[in-house]
């Protein structure tokens, strides 16, 4: 599963650019900060490679199996 924290996201687009499977795309939605956060468009192709998490400078994206549920 992929979680995007729209409050932390600054809309830089690194997660979209470095996703090898085109799972994400920048959305048209506008957040309170006035940025376009990414959205998940193709979750079934996600291999949990972790690139989006690795390159997100703002800890705004997290992927994982649903083990770590709070």
């Amino acid at each position, binding site marked *: 599963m992929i979680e995007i924290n729209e409050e*932390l996201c600054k809309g*830089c687009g*690194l997660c979209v650019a*470095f996703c090898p499977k085109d799972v994400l795309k920048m959305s048209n939605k506008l957040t309170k900060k006035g940025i376009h956060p990414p959205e998940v468009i193709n979750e079934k192709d996600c291999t949990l490679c972790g690139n989006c998490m690795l*390159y*997100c*400078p703002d*800890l705004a994206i997290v992927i994982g199996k*649903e083990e770590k549920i*709070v």
Partner: protein
Amino acid sequence: MKIVHPLIKYVRPGFLSTTNCAGCGNGIIAQSILRAVDELEMDIDDFVFVSGIGCAAWIPSPFFNADVLHTTHGRPIAFATGVKLSNPKLRVMVVSGDGDLVAIGGNHFIHAARRNIDLTVICANNGIYGMTGGQVGPTTPSGLKTATTPYGNLERPFDLPNLAKAAGAVYVARWTTYHARQLTKSIKRAVQKKGFSFIEVISQCPVQFGRRTGAGNAVTMMQNYKKNSVSIKKVDKLKENELKGKIIVGEFIDREEPELCEEIAKMRERIG
């Protein structure tokens, strides 16, 4: 249902949202450090993070929920030297920018390397003074137009890994933010290494460097890091013209030398 980011536990409560610009490489470096601490299964309370002044100094300060010493401009290595010498049990990591560490703080940098004191120094090198608005720095490529080199930079940039190596560092590596996985591994090595370790991270400043010099946005800059990087292992096989404009990445040195704090402890025993 929510999954929690595995590194959030290391973030100071109330400081999750950083002041970094969108796409800034600082966040990638911050996570690489925290990931290294996490993967090493070390207690972050055993660390002291020391930073100077400039955007990169805000990587640990106040973001990391640990002991953080946010010092004056150029001096973090000297502060860190005092911390380490007076309590060698602490793991001391300096995180700062190129202007802070090798322009105003260049003297402390080479001398700490010469002393081989057990510090891990991570330099976020964005090639410019970001916080003050994009002025030329000691790492700005020659010819580049910046806020204070409107006719192009006439000076040559420092080659930081080779500077550190020549000054006596025992572990030296260079990566870019694109190499976040290798960077994490390198930080783990540096933290465990006894002696002065230095890691340069070529990092994108999309606002002051990217916009001003035409290097593009964060995505373009990082894609270029990927495209232009050459492993140090392959450098010998390449001709000089093939290396032009390339970023040599990898481990520049990993050697054993007597470490200062250990030598001091031995001296104390010797004189009884």
